[in-house]
């Protein structure tokens, strides 16, 4: 019978959970180690940390295992865990220039100070299915690493810091002046400790997107790039690397670096008109946990889009974008339609039957 039997509902639910677990462990393969997920599926872990809004690679890997690979579920698990953590404080804002780079490119210029550092990326690979990978082993890995490092003799060290491309545009006075719109350097509004109201300030909008679901952000940004919008972006700079986490000592007030987080930062350049009527460049900014370039670029495009003076397309409507990018909210609401709705449906049946009756009566009178 239906899953709201008079008795037995509780038992059915418990069995459903067991069934799910059974599906995950019934195979003959060795149990997946959390360390294996962390080491060998790092981009997955990065994505989960971003959408779960908690930088905790081990927990993210565990969530992936627990969710049997369902990304929305895994982010959800991490987010729910986040709720149990008390807010201890806020870090000192990190200047993006302090990033310890592993990848840094610009599409705006052919060559840039510091160079185009390609870093680890699938961008230039051929997506041919690598059947050899099915035959993975420690030995093969050792051989590969040996061959990679064998011929590296004196490599140049990467510079300590890389200048920002946008700074160069700024000194040339080509960037729209936005100083009066900057958030106070002291403390940004914490989106997770309040609810969003519209129009939202930029710091709140960016936080909202930084926690957003990658696919959703991509969908909206793509619609804009394709023509439902006016951003026409150029990737001014894309950086992947490690940002220092700095906090202020409660007594001395000194800054201390307590660790670092991997992050991806995208700055896109677009066109805008200043109030005086001169054309300038304007920026869109994206930043997220881990190595997730699609998300950072999409976020940057949307950051620019939602600031459009006269929004027309959905991606330019700030309220539309920010209300629908959270993966935990959207998956929850989508899933909730599977819950019993028979009481509300009964009410609907009543109304529909009633209006049908009234209609039939009046038709009868006319006849």
């Amino acid at each position, binding site marked *: 019978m239906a899953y709201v039997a008079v008795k037995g509902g509780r038992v059915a639910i418990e069995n459903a959970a067991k069934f799910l677990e059974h599906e995950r462990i019934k195979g003959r393969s060795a149990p997946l180690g959390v360390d294996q997920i962390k080491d060998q599926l790092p981009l997955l872990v990065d994505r989960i940390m971003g959408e779960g809004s908690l930088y905790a690679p081990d927990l993210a890997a565990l969530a992936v295992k627990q969710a049997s690979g369902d990304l929305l579920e895994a982010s959800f698990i991490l987010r729910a865990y986040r709720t149990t*953590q008390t807010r201890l404080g806020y870090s000192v804002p990190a200047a993006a220039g302090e990033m310890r780079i592993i990848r840094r490119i610009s599409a705006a210029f052919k060559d840039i100070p510091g160079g185009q550092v390609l870093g680890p990326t699938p961008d230039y690979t051929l997506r041919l299915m690598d059947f050899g990978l099915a035959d993975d082993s420690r030995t093969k890995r050792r051989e590969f690493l040996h061959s990679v490092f064998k011929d590296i003799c004196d490599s140049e060290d990467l510079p300590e810091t890389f200048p920002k491309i946008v700074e160069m545009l700024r000194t040339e006075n080509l960037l729209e002046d936005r100083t009066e719109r900057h958030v106070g350097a002291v403390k940004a509004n914490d989106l*997770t400790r309040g*609810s969003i109201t519209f129009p939202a300030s930029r710091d709140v909008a960016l936080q909202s997107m930084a926690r957003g679901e990658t696919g959703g952000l991509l969908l909206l940004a793509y619609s804009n790039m394709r023509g439902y919008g006016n951003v026409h972006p150029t990737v001014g700079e894309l950086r992947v690397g490690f940002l220092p986490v700095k906090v202020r000592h409660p007594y001395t007030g000194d800054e201390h670096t307590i660790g670092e987080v991997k992050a991806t930062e995208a700055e896109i350049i677009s066109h805008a008109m200043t109030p005086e009527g001169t054309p300038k460049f304007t920026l869109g900014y994206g930043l997220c946990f881990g190595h997730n370039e699609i998300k950072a670029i999409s976020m940057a495009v949307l950051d620019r889009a939602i600031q459009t003076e006269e929004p027309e397309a959905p991606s330019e409507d700030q*309220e539309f974008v920010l209300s629908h990018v959270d993966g935990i909210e959207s998956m929850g609401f989508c899933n909730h339609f599977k819950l019993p709705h028979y009481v509300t449906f009964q009410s609907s049946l009543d109304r529909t039957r009633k209006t049908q009756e009234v209609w039939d009566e009046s038709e009868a009178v006319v006849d």
Partner: protein
Amino acid sequence: MNLKQWLTSDLHAERATGKYSFAFLDEGTKREIRRKILKAIAIPGYQVPFGSRELPIARGWGTGGLQITLTIIGPRDILKVIDQGSDDSVNAVNISTFVTRVTGVTLTTDTTEASIIQTRHRIPEEPMNEDQVLVLQVPIPEALRTVEPSEEETRRMHAEADYSALWLYLYEDIIRYREISIGARYPVTVNHRYIMDPSPIPRWDIPKLHRAKNLFLFCAGREKRIYAIPPHTDVRPLEFQDYPFRVEDFKGAVCCRCGSTATYLDEIIEDETGARIYLCSDTAYCAKTAEEQRA
């Protein structure tokens, strides 16, 4: 006993809540939500925004109601959780399991015994008293959402009591169908000021909101809003003088378990012929009534 005493008592050791604080939420969160609840009670029907936290249960599945319950519950409270009127429904079971796991409170199915009742889409048939709180789960807290998709705009409409768009929607319904076609989520005016969405309770339950003895607390977790109807508050469904508000008409159907004709009934399709039977939606009340009849 208060929480501090409870934490050091044997009761706590007996029902250990594990690594989580009492009722899962941290104290800062509870404080914020309590303050917002007080504000909501002070402005009946007004939606108070709050920093809704994620919970181990999905958004859309009762995180709002749950945050209220977890915030107001104490170790000695007695909890009832229902969904569609039933204590045994999947959603109700899931929620009550979670709450008992992080608080150790006693559960009941008897409406008259509970101090806190968390519900999805129904108000229990038995009237509640001044010592009880009904916590309702709300998917869409905005009564005006049917006529206006923008949150920024609906906030302005509430602030200026600019409700003509909703009244117009009802008027158009009447000229189109000769009836107001809204089923559940029927808009009501609270304390002669704010128009409120009572959550997807059937029209049957709307009269129970008016001048009740108990407190009603509503919360939408995903949409991040808390609102309230304090006891003895005026709550009237939107209606016209010549098209009054009407509850569902079961056309004399009878509950086949307890024989009731005065409760909200679930319609069950028995077999392929389409034959119907009816059962009380409020399963606990139905069982009680059936029991009393047998005695």
